[in-house]
């Protein structure tokens, strides 16, 4: 920990606890809130996942039943069938939407590289690119619902201009609903936080490295490939990790506002499924179990990502 050498607690003289009252007083407001709204709830969530609870009746301990219902399979005739096929379907939906992450990261990098040029008017573009990330997600989702509208939406109007007589029904067909979600999230993400992080990363790269590369006769691609990209790898790692974490929890607003999770569950993500279980069907225990599994997935992927990064991230 930073600063622990100079002010560590190891060498504290033994004093009556009253001496530290002042210090604890600083901590108390935050700590109480932290206890009530973070620490205890985390513990409670794990406990809840072993119960069946419909809010009205007291919770009933059911052991691993929720997890069995969620994750196991049973024999149906000659083949295996999932106990909760919806979970697997919605998990696939969630993962499908995360296929947009590489594109989003790449797009952010391109934006950052462009915005890092010393050009007139670049500030205007910076602000413009960032607007989608800052605006109310609900309003933006509503806007995209209108753009994706099958008959009169802007996108299909354009597609017809370009000679596609029968453009897809973006939000109303199982084939196109998920791609539509990805398009929207790309628009929101590309110029947003990730782009700013990349910009900061770019500005931390020492200029001497490019000068040295110039002396070696490197062209712009060489510089990008062998200087910029390796030096940005910590940023890329951070961005990818955060994108995966939020990707697993994603899709709620879009599904709630645009499709209600449809058509035929094609856009229901795990997050919406948890919401439905907990707050529409009042299966608190089951919802908590799904949340725990989701947490496990996030944790696992973050760990995996971190392990992989040991090989490719250059610090």
């Amino acid at each position, binding site marked *: 920990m930073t600063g622990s050498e100079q002010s560590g607690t190891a060498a504290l003289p033994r004093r009556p606890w009253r001496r530290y009252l002042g210090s604890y007083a600083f901590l108390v407001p935050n700590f109480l809130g932290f206890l009530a709204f973070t620490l205890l709830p985390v513990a409670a969530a794990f406990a809840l996942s072993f119960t069946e609870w419909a809010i009205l009746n007291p919770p009933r301990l059911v052991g691993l039943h929720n997890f069995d219902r969620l994750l196991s399979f049973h024999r149906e005739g000659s083949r295996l069938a999932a106990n909760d096929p919806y979970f697997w379907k919605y998990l696939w939906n969630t993962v499908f939407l995360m296929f947009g992450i590489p594109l989003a990261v790449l797009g952010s990098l391109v934006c950052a590289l*462009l915005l890092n040029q010393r050009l007139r008017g670049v500030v205007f573009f910076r602000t413009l690119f960032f607007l989608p990330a800052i605006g*109310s997600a609900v309003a933006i989702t509503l806007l995209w619902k209108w753009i994706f509208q099958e008959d009169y939406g802007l996108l299909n109007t354009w597609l*017809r201009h370009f000679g596609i007589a029968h453009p897809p029904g973006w939000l109303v067909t199982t084939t196109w609903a998920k791609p539509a979600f990805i398009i929207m999230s790309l628009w929101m993400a590309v110029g947003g936080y990730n782009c700013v992080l990349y910009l900061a990363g770019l500005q931390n790269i020492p200029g001497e490295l490019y000068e040295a590369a110039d002396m070696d006769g490197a062209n712009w691609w060489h510089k990008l490939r062998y200087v910029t990209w390796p030096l940005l790898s910590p940023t890329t790692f951070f961005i990818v990790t955060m994108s995966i974490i939020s990707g697993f929890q994603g899709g709620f607003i879009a599904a709630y506002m645009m499709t209600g999770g449809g058509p035929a569950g094609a856009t229901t993500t795990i997050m919406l499924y948890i919401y439905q279980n907990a707050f529409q069907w009042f299966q608190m225990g089951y919802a908590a179990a799904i949340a725990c599994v989701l947490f496990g997935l996030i944790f696992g992927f973050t760990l995996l990502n971190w392990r992989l990064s040991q090989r490719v991230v250059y610090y």
Partner: protein
Amino acid sequence: MSAPYDTLPARRRKRPRGLGLKLLAYAALCAIGFVMAAPLVWMISTSLKDPTQVVVGRDQWLPRRQVVSRYGPVYSARFDDVEVRGAEIAITPQGRRLRLLEPARLAGRIVTVPANQARPVERLHFEWRNYVAAWKAMKVESALGGLLRNADAFLVFYINSIIVAVSVTFGQVATSSLAAYAFARLRFPGRDKLFLGYLATLMVPGVITMIPVYILLSRLRLTDTYWALILPGMFSAYGTFMLRQFFLTIPRDLEDAARIDGASLLGIYWNVILPLSKPALAALTTFVFLHSWNDFMWPLIVIDSLGLKTLPIGLAHFQGPYLTEWHLLMAASVIVMVPVLIVFVIGQRYFVRGLILSGLKA
């Protein structure tokens, strides 16, 4: 506008050498800029259109409306090889019956042209009334504990959003900075263990705590109150962590000087630490405010009454009865978006710095 990112270290990379490269960069910027701007412009454009001009399947960017004369809506057509304009006075099986207005020598004549050959004459027209209509579309019987009666719903949503976002921001900045000061500067048993506990929960996604916190609040009978919106947002491990990292960079000499002058802990916190931490505090403030203002899922879970809804869930509610009235939906969306954008433009410098503080040190 001043350069918003001037807090960043100056870029030392060489400027692009050729004019061609510069032009290429501009072209790419403009292309991306177009993709970014088009939906937003479309939102504003739709919000200002006459209801009849919305679902027409044309990418009409400037809102237009058919000209209406005192005889009726105006069409243009070819009649006797002349371009004429006339007001439609009837629709007959043969076509539109027009009372000609132009050219002058034919004015007053009644002619019938086939319907598919008469084109509506349009003129630029901003339908500002959409905003009034959206604003007044819903009423709230009672809000602010009965203080407001039969008020326009969006006014109530605005007030609620401001109450919640300001309280959450103030609360979180206050509690986080106090705790961060303790973690960064004070010495007491258990400090580092406790801080490690805070760090560990930074990893825990919000989805885990959502259900237990809801149950806790409903047990306390606090759901569907302002408390449910404000209390959980007032404390954050993230804010504490970020501010602690910043406080650690403040030189100790200043505090020592204050201590010699007899300042109390609280005095040092208030008079030395806080004034020196303005950038970090501003960053956290902007961050928390925007997050709280745009938060959707939590208010959706804990709030039922229309009078307690914040702007995002109010907009979601508004969508219900006006599902296909895109001009109203877009006007409402603009109403919801605008204040955030203003806050952003004012605070973007701090915001970006906060992002970098939190992002790269995490």
